[in-house]
């Protein structure tokens, strides 16, 4: 039998290949992210001083929603074709395999958000001084969104209409990330130090990295039973 780690790599490679073959599906959450953000200037004001104030919050809320919308693809297709059951049946350590799937999901949905965010920051007149902080908070925050969201998806994957329910389960759990991340970008825009908030985000990332795979694995076992 292959070792746990080589299975981890295999599963990661498989998920990345699958994602690459469905490139258009990957673009959808990103398009959503861009469209939602471009709605705000239309709805509020085109003045740079107004947009500057709301920019950190808007970018982060849009990132939360985009991450949540992309979550469904994490387990859905594998659940429908039965491969999720096979993954759960292997003798390998399930939380580790779950982590591989979450990592693949983050690489294909979270990482592109980080690349896009500075451009959207420019659209909302986010000061240059805050740009680096925006990237740093997204780099620390989006993995948390994928990890925590995975628990919600695992709980709802067996339900036919899990989409709205998923948002109800997952969004309250995202609130601390939003507070620290948007707070940090706000502070950076005003020229204050933000290291404290980044440390908090790092701590939340470590906490969710260690606990979320276990919760996701047990939730998956419940959904598959």
């Amino acid at each position: 039998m292959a070792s746990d780690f080589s299975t981890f790599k295999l599963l990661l490679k498989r998920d990345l290949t699958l994602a690459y073959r469905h490139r258009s599906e990957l673009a959808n959450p990103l398009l959503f992210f861009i469209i939602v953000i471009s709605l705000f200037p239309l709805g509020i004001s085109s003045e740079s001083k107004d947009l500057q104030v709301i920019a950190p919050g808007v970018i982060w809320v849009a990132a939360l929603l985009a991450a949540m919308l992309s979550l469904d693809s994490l387990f859905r297709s594998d659940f429908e074709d039965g491969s999720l059951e096979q993954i759960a049946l292997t003798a390998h350590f399930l939380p580790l395999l779950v982590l591989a799937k979450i990592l693949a999901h983050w690489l294909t949905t979270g990482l592109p958000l980080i690349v896009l965010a500075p451009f959207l920051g420019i659209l909302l007149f986010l000061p240059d001084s805050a740009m680096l902080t925006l990237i740093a908070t997204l780099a620390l925050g989006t993995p948390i969104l994928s990890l925590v969201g995975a628990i919600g998806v695992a709980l709802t994957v067996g339900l036919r209409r899990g989409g709205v329910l998923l948002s109800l389960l997952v969004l309250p759990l995202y609130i601390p990330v939003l507070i620290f991340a948007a707070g940090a970008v706000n502070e950076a825009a005003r020229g204050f130090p933000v290291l404290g908030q980044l440390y908090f985000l790092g701590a939340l990332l470590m906490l969710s990295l260690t606990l979320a795979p276990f919760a996701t694995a047990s939730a998956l076992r419940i959904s598959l039973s």
Partner: protein
Amino acid sequence: MWAFLYKFSSPKYFYTIAGRLIPWFGWSCLVVMLVGLYYGLFKAPPDYQQGESYRIMFIHVPAAWMSMFVYMIMAVAGGIGLIWRIKLAEVMAASSAPIGASFTFLALVTGALWGKPMWGAWWVWDARLTSELILLFLYLGVIALNSAIEDKRTAARASGVLALVGVVNIPIIHYSVEWWNTLHQGATITKLDAPSIHISMLIPLLLMAVAFKLFYATVVLMRARCEVLERERNASWVQELVKRD
């Protein structure tokens, strides 16, 4: 002791015991609540700053306490149900969730009613109010998940996992909200933060807290009995019970 626990956790035994306990809890709840309300609404002196309107605290504070207490019970019961697969723990968790959500809602509404004359606004994004609102969202999530899954046992285990995830998150949410609030608003309005509360107000408050606990015990047992009947509807003792009545 284990034998007793084992016996108590059998649905049939629980059904009869709970039926006998409910009147005791219910009547003592009524007595304590009437005494507490009397002392709170008539005997306690008016507050030197807030006048009479502080009296809503005798409902508001116990409700807020219960909102957290019931969540803990729900999570612990959910955890027990997950680990030892005890049906009764699952039943308790499932029947606690709507009660806890109601307490949270009550705390929010009374808070808003009190906030209007005191702060001049129905709602303030105060740290405690906000974390109470998020707690309500967590409750609603558990309830929604519970009702979305058809198989009762799967539903109970799934919402047990969610409740446990929520318990890990509640302190994080609480402190992050507090931090967010104090950072963004210079002057935070804290309610009931006076370190000493006068004994004439403390006693009715504690009485009301006890009354709310008894009320919870009464209602949760009623709901749990109903839930047990629904789950065990194919069991022979339920069939006999229905035939006898």
